């Protein structure tokens, strides 16, 4: 009950804040837990003040640049909104490029440390995230990754939290959905086995499908450099699959749809959250994606106020519709702000300016693992975290009709 009430209040506060009422700060429930023995400056009135140095690490150049740029742009929108509110709390944002490479990512992390970073919204991609989180864990720097979804990212590191789903949830949810709605009798899977995200979903999907008795007739793989999908699509076709499950990102997915179309193969396609964005590829013939189904926590066409506000601002500033990654970046900044406000309300105020990264890390860990804390954003309402750092939120099933998402 407490949790629900809190999330309601938080939602209210956020919506009001975004509507420009200038009402800053969230209201936390009363109580005296969550103080992790840090020496935070209390101002006595429960307000959050000061300037937070927030760092983002992600691929801004190279083959994976699209994901990093989306997250940075999304976070930028959130930071602009928060700073425009005034009210004493400001965020300084710095983004560093890691080229989707572990070595460069650790370099980027150290650059942020030299700048005096207090918390990190990153890193965007999984492999660099594992490398950086190991460093951050020994340095005690708080990390909230917008999109690195593998379980190895958070495993054994109390300071690392995920804003996106951990992979296992999505796979089993997808299999369950396909089974419940009797979407297929024969399923083909095409997944990227160089990608922890894709492989993770594949494994749980397969386990769940076997448990439910869904027949999997074709399993094919590809890697990051693959552009030719004739073999994978051909295999699905020749095995008579009537549904192709694509636990992959939207760029290869667009190639698969194109390939299927060019050989006249028309099964149902079922995707996961990485598929979101397929309608925004410049030049993509959206009629190819007609009837594609996906489970996603974010859809740019949702009609709630949070999403509408975010999509409008993002489109205005960057000239494109935000993808799920941008939404994750946006939510990261707000989740960290909400956590700080939660702490401030409980402990009679908080000035973040002079807090060291270590102090802030303990504060944020205590809040994120607090059962009473939840955050709202465009990728989900009432997100709560467990002590492993994994988030709990609900995916929505949508289908593409006439070039837009329609709820199912």
């Amino acid at each position, binding site marked *: 009950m407490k949790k629900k009430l809190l999330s309601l209040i938080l939602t209210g506060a956020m919506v009001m804040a975004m509507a420009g009422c200038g009402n800053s700060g969230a209201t936390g429930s009363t109580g005296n837990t969550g103080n992790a023995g840090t020496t935070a400056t209390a101002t006595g009135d429960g307000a959050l003040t000061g300037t937070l140095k927030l760092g983002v690490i992600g691929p801004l150049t190279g083959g994976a640049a699209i994901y990093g740029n989306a997250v940075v742009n999304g976070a930028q929108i959130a930071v602009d909104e928060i700073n425009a509110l005034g009210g004493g709390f400001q965020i300084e944002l710095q983004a560093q490029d890691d080229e989707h490479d572990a070595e460069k990512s650790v370099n980027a992390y150290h650059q942020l440390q030299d700048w005096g970073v207090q918390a990190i919204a990153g890193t965007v991609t999984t492999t660099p995230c594992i490398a950086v989180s190991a460093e951050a864990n020994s340095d005690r720097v708080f990390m909230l990754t917008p999109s690195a979804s593998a379980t190895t990212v958070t495993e054994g590191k109390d300071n690392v939290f995920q804003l996106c789903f951990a992979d296992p949830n999505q796979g089993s949810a997808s299999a369950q959905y396909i089974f419940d709605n009797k979407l297929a009798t024969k399923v083909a899977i095409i997944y990227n086995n160089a990608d922890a995200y894709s492989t993770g979903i594949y494994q749980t999907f397969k386990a769940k499908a076997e448990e439910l008795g869904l027949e999997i007739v074709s399993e094919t793989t*590809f890697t990051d450099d693959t552009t030719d999908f004739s073999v994978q699509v051909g295999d699905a076709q020749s095995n008579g699959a009537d549904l192709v499950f694509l636990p992959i990102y939207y760029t290869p997915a667009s190639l698969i749809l194109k390939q299927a179309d060019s050989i006249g193969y028309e099964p149902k396609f079922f995707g996961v959250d990485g598929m979101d964005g397929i309608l925004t590829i410049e030049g993509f013939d959206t009629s190819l994606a007609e009837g594609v189904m996906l489970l996603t926590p974010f859809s740019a066409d949702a009609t709630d106020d949070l999403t509408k506000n975010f999509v409008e601002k993002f489109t205005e500033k960057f000239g494109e519709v935000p993808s799920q990654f941008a939404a994750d970046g946006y939510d990261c900044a707000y989740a960290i702000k909400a956590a700080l406000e939660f702490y401030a309300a409980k402990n009679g105020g908080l000035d973040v300016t002079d807090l060291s990264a270590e102090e802030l890390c303990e504060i944020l860990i205590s809040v994120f693992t607090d059962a009473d804390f939840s955050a709202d954003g465009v990728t989900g309402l009432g997100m709560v975290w467990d002590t492993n750092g994994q988030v709990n939120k609900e995916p929505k099933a949508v289908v593409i009709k006439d070039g837009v998402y329609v709820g199912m």
Partner: protein
Amino acid sequence: MLVHLINGISLGSIYAIIALGYTMVYGIAKMLNFAHGDVIMIGGYVAFFALTSDKLNLPAPVAVLLAIIVCTILGITIERLAYKPLRAATSLAVLITAIGMSYFLQNSALLLWGANPKAFPDMFKNAEAIELFGAKISPVALVAIFANIVIMIILTLFTTRTKMGKAMRAVSEDKGAATLMGINVNFTISLTFAIGSGLAAIAGVLLCSAYPTLMPTTGSLPGIKAFTAAVFGGIGSIPGAMIGGILLGVIEILARAYISSELADAIVFGVLIVVLIFRPTGLLGKQIHEKV
């Protein structure tokens, strides 16, 4: 099996057209032009904007022509600015410069057009998949094969029948002697770059039509594969590039279909190594006899 074979030949045809650029430049300037793959990418982008921009909205043949023109000019410019000053330098110095040029083109594309992949428009939208012995073949695949054959015939005629083509062969044979015979070596080398880059534009359009994502890094991997194809067939040899390209494409697709998609590239490179062990200068390369 037949589908895979034809898909392989189609992919191989694209490799072959790219490989021609490598092989001609290598034959004449004795340099590995690592920026060639990125010229393909530029060609793809030019065609993409010509086809999709609201202001231009050009018909497909004009867009392809525009891409060819831009790439030809780009190729000549790169040669003049970066490679010509190094004509007397070691081949390693030229190689590193070419790599620098490759980075330069990729990062310029990143700044100009962003990292988001673009979906290349379907130029053969109205064409249906063609059925051949019960296998469905995409129209792009057939166009690629056809384009490859036409280009091969034109190039062979050009190098054997025309004056400029003969000059080209003379320069690749012996620069000094060609100069003495009154051939303008610098012009001939520029011409080679122009032809190679024009072919790269065609390859770029075909590549993006067959695999319609366009990113700043689109050209790198096909570039390396095509380079391998050129060596496979015997670098410097035009029919060699064609055979090398097609074999490479077929091996790659078959390996992916019947062995493992992760090991496909390893198998392609493995076959290359085996061929080079038995024919150290490629399938159709000239055997060089050492003089003491």
